């Protein structure tokens, strides 16, 4: 067992190998074989993660990271990144979530996608997705991280546009890729700055060298942190680059589950946590992270409340929950952010898979107002979905979401970087979360049945829900607040890698008070939802909205804004000069030459009289010149 961790590379290699086999084997492969390879590779990876994790924890109780270099990628003028993996508490947590939640989603997809003609293609992309995400979180240098980063972007593009025949899906896919690339533009420049200053892109080397080179609050540290933040905002769909995520649900539901829980959107959280030293050197940048998080969680929460498409509710909910993670990162609550990431991955995967079943069994019906009464017909889905929604709403004491979100709420006030405003925003967000979560549950599963399910999920689809449901409850008990048992297994583990949060407000009573408030707010949110939506006879159509609700429904009109400011000018620019003005110049030259040719050839017209005149004139001019000059 002691050498088990040396198989770290295999965790990453397995999903890649899975998709490679699926590519090479081609069309001959039966559906069953596709599923076995697709699901099997990621599941093996998950099992291996467990073994590697255990071996890693046994070997070094001190939490010393384990680095495994596979090969030297390149070596140019001091830039010598390797294909090398770095395992520590943070990356272990991430690969654990990625592989486990990933394999559950894969298992679910096996049945969900069984009748789709693109089954093989689907698993190729999904395996690649997991492979790139693992590369991202295990990379020991920024360049390899960037490889995973872009690879994840590619797979999201491929999967969002999976049903490629509908141009709308293609549009959503491109939007996702392009918007995140805008963020990556900033991140790339961040990499240039890092390399220029530290002559390496090795993450640990940079983190060690940075505090010695840069002063706290220096301009260069601020610039670098903001540039990296740009990348994180794009991938994690935070303001102002959040617009791609709501559209990203154009892909099959398991894809949404994967994008929103374990992969892709959490990459930004990971990046900031991973480069936390740079953000600590730039307190302004870190404050910006917190503020963006706080604003995003409110903006997205209000948007989620006004959706009627069940997946769009969940999409905005993801943006909002990632907002919480950013808030936590911004106030230096590093382990709280990672904790919420993990718990969020459980319940958000659960909710998306549940929503997937609902949509799948109702023949692609997305509108919650056309559902209803499903709790009897899809019992497993209902109960697990309820657990997920409760966890999302942070229902006190029993759900994992309570423990992870409460920690962020408390620290957004109590940490040395916290403030009462951040706490209030987070609290308002908590109310909204509970409200829209239970609005969703009540509309979908209660009230009159407006449509009969045409198919029922099998065990392969419900089993992942049950597992995730259990995790959404018990996952919280590995980290209990100071006033309730003070069990800190998770943060102890993470804080071997990330700094401890500095708490400036002491006293369990204060903490208890804050917990009471946040608990009450969550319950109040659920209660409000019940008052407005429990067994209310809504018409089976899009709900009526007033102007403000419409504004929220359209995601605060960011799309309109970007359309007017960026998209249309770009298209206009492209249109006005399609044929390249510069080419006109050369064609003009050619026309000029032709014209001159005609002009001169006119002189050669074969008329002897004309020749004689020209000859005479020429002679006169020459003679004049000779005589008078």
């Amino acid at each position, binding site marked *: 067992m002691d050498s088990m961790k040396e198989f770290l590379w295999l965790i990453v290699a397995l999903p890649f190998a899975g998709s490679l086999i699926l590519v090479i084997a081609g069309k001959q492969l039966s559906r069953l074989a596709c599923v076995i390879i697709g699901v099997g590779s990621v599941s093996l990876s998950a099992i291996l993660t467990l073994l590697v994790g255990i071996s890693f924890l046994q070997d070094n109780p001190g939490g010393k990271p384990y680095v495994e270099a596979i090969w030297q990628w390149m070596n140019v003028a001091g830039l010598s990144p390797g294909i090398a993996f770095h395992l520590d508490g943070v990356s272990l947590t991430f690969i654990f979530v990625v592989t486990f939640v990933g394999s559950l989603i894969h298992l679910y997809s096996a049945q969900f996608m069984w009748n789709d003609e693109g089954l093989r293609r689907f698993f190729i992309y999904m395996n690649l997705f997991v492979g790139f995400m693992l590369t991202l979180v295990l990379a020991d240098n920024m360049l390899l991280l960037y490889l995973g980063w872009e690879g994840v972007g590619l797979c999201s593009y491929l999967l969002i*546009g999976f049903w490629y025949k509908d141009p709308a899906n293609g549009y959503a896919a491109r939007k996702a890729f*392009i918007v995140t690339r805008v963020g990556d533009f900033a991140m790339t420049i961040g990499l240039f700055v890092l390399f220029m200053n530290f002559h390496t892109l090795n993450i640990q080397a940079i983190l060690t060298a940075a505090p010695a080179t840069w002063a706290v609050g220096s301009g260069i540290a601020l610039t670098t942190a903001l540039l990296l933040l740009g990348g994180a905002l794009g991938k994690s769909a935070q303001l102002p680059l959040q617009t791609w995520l709501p559209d990203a649900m154009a892909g099959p539901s398991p894809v949404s589950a994967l994008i929103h829980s374990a992969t892709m959107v959490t990459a930004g959280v990971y990046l900031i946590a991973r480069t936390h030293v740079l953000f600590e050197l730039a307190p302004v940048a870190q404050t910006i992270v917190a503020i963006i998080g706080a604003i995003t969680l409110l903006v997205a929460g209000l948007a989620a409340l006004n959706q009627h498409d069940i997946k769009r509710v969940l999409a905005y909910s993801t943006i909002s929950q990632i907002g919480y993670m950013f808030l936590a990162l911004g106030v230096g609550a590093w382990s709280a952010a990672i904790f919420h990431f993990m718990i969020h991955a459980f319940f958000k995967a659960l909710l998306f898979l549940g929503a997937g079943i609902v949509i799948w069994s109702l023949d692609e019906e997305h509108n919650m107002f056309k559902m209803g009464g499903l709790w009897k017909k899809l019992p497993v889905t209902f109960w697990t979905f309820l657990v997920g929604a409760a966890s999302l709403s942070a229902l006190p004491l029993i759900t994992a979401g309570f423990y992870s979100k409460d920690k962020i709420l408390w620290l957004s006030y109590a940490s040395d970087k916290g403030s009462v405003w951040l706490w209030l925003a987070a609290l308002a967000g908590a109310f909204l979360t509970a409200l829209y979560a239970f609005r969703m549950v009540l509309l979908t599963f209660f009230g009159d049945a407006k449509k009969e399910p045409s198919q029922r999920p099998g065990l392969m689809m419900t089993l992942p829900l049950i597992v995730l449901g259990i995790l959404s409850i018990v996952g919280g008990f590995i980290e209990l607040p100071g006033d309730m048992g003070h069990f800190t297994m998770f943060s102890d583990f993470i804080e071997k890698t990330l700094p401890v949060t500095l708490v400036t407000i002491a006293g369990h009573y204060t903490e208890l008070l804050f917990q009471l408030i946040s608990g009450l707010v969550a319950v109040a949110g659920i209660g409000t939802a019940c008052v407005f939506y429990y067994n209310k006879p809504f018409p089976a159509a899009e709900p009526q909205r007033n102007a403000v609700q419409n504004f929220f429904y359209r995601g605060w009109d960011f799309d309109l804004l970007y359309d007017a400011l960026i998209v249309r000018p770009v298209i206009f620019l492209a249109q006005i000069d399609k044929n390249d003005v510069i080419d006109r110049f050369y064609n003009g030259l050619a026309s000029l030459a032709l014209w001159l040719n005609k002009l001169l050839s006119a002189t050669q017209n074969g008329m002897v009289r004309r020749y004689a005149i020209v000859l005479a004139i020429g002679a006169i001019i020459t003679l004049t010149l000779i005589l008078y000059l």
Partner: protein
Amino acid sequence: MILAALIVLLMGCGMLAWLAGRWNNTLPRIISLAGISVQLLVVVWLWLTHQRGSASTLWIMSYTHSWIPAFGIHIKLAVDGLSLLMLALTSFLGILSVLTSWKEINKRVGFFHFNLLFVLAGIAGVFLSLDLFLFYFSWEVMLIPMYFLISIWGNENRTYASYKFFLFTQGSGLLMFLSILGLYLVHGHNTGVFTFDYEQLLGTVMAPQTAFLLMLGFVIAFIVKLSTVPFHSWLPDAHTQAPTAGSVILAGLLLKTGAYGLIRFVLPLFPQASHQFAPVAMLLGVISILYGAKLAFAQTDLKRLVAYISVSHMGFILLGIYAFNEMAMQGVVMQMVAHGISTGGLFIIAGTLHERIQTRDIGQMGGLWARLPKMGAMGLVFVMASLGLPGLGNFVAEFLILTGSFMANKTLTIIATLGLVAATIYSLRIMQKVFYGKEQKQWTIADFSIREMGIMTCLVIAILWLGLFPSAVLTVSRASVLEVIERVEGRDKTQSDKADVNPRETDHQAITITSVNEQGQHWKINTKNSN
């Protein structure tokens, strides 16, 4: 000897193919394939067996033979890491060009392959020549058969395109020839030795204005070839109208001769003038990146679109060359190889698609993935390469170029980095318009055949290999790149030392300087007149 034999081999096979074409259509193809394969084998042999990297033996192999001794013209060929890479690319893409034309070309097959092999021979000559006269000669040799390839086997608007191609390259080539003669004369005046030998011409002492003007002649020829904005407009027409093999060679190899010329001749021969010119060149590079991207986005003709992508990608090369540091220059070398492969792939896809549906209009395509999944998957790989996805060769190239040029010029590099976003936009548009979305027409067409899959698989493996194991290429070019950087950077400070090292004695020094001044004056007068 082997080097000369390589070129002779290509020419010989070309003539043989022409002859064989009188009897049979398949024979010329086989002869060409065999000829280029032998070249590839020799290159691989050189790559594997010969030591590189030590500065003393920059040249892996060289060959000198007197040609026109009266004018100091030699057949001087030499191969170093850089030219070895370019030769490898030439033979690799050469083989694929023959294979891709296997079914496409059925008219005058023998003459086609004659031209193909002569273009390749010319390109090999350009990459190997160390005598400026021979270099110019090779430059012309690759031009004329290319003209025929476009004008005989091209598409509907081929005459216009081939004239345009010919005039642009010939016109700019003429300026280069004048510069070569100027350099020859200056060096002759200075030292009494009239020679076209590159190594002797290195370090020729010149007045700055003279150097700048002479450099400009070279630079214009090279950046026209590199299709830098505003000299790019021949390229979209030539690429669009050329047969597939022609497009592959144009994009994959001919453009690279421009970059190669800048690295091999302009920077070492005119280090100071290059420094003066650097800001302009970098600016032109950035303009090319963005303007090319913008035009690519607007195109509806698939081949034209890919052609503008080349304009954009060549902008990175220009930016990187004039950053004058190892990292950017290594990136440039990588870009030359990777772009050859990725754009080759895109052109083969565009060509085979054109062959099947008789149109290049992306408005009439759409939804082709359902019918052509193999082609779609291959298209995806090369589209991703062109937008700079890490793991593929182009990313390594662009990242190195940008990191290197960031150290030289931050503002321009930041603007150039915007090109990566632009690349995403135009690249994804290809996928959407061709392979995704609704089917515009019910095409009944076949997917890639085994032969075509073979070609594409080679290209995919190559681009992945470049992306994941770029060291294999970068170590080969390292010594050459360092040598160039040293020349262009070192000359500034050690001008006087180098002059002392010159073989000529100090009593000639005075004469040298006066004659240089005369030259400078002379050129000045000329420019005044021309203004």
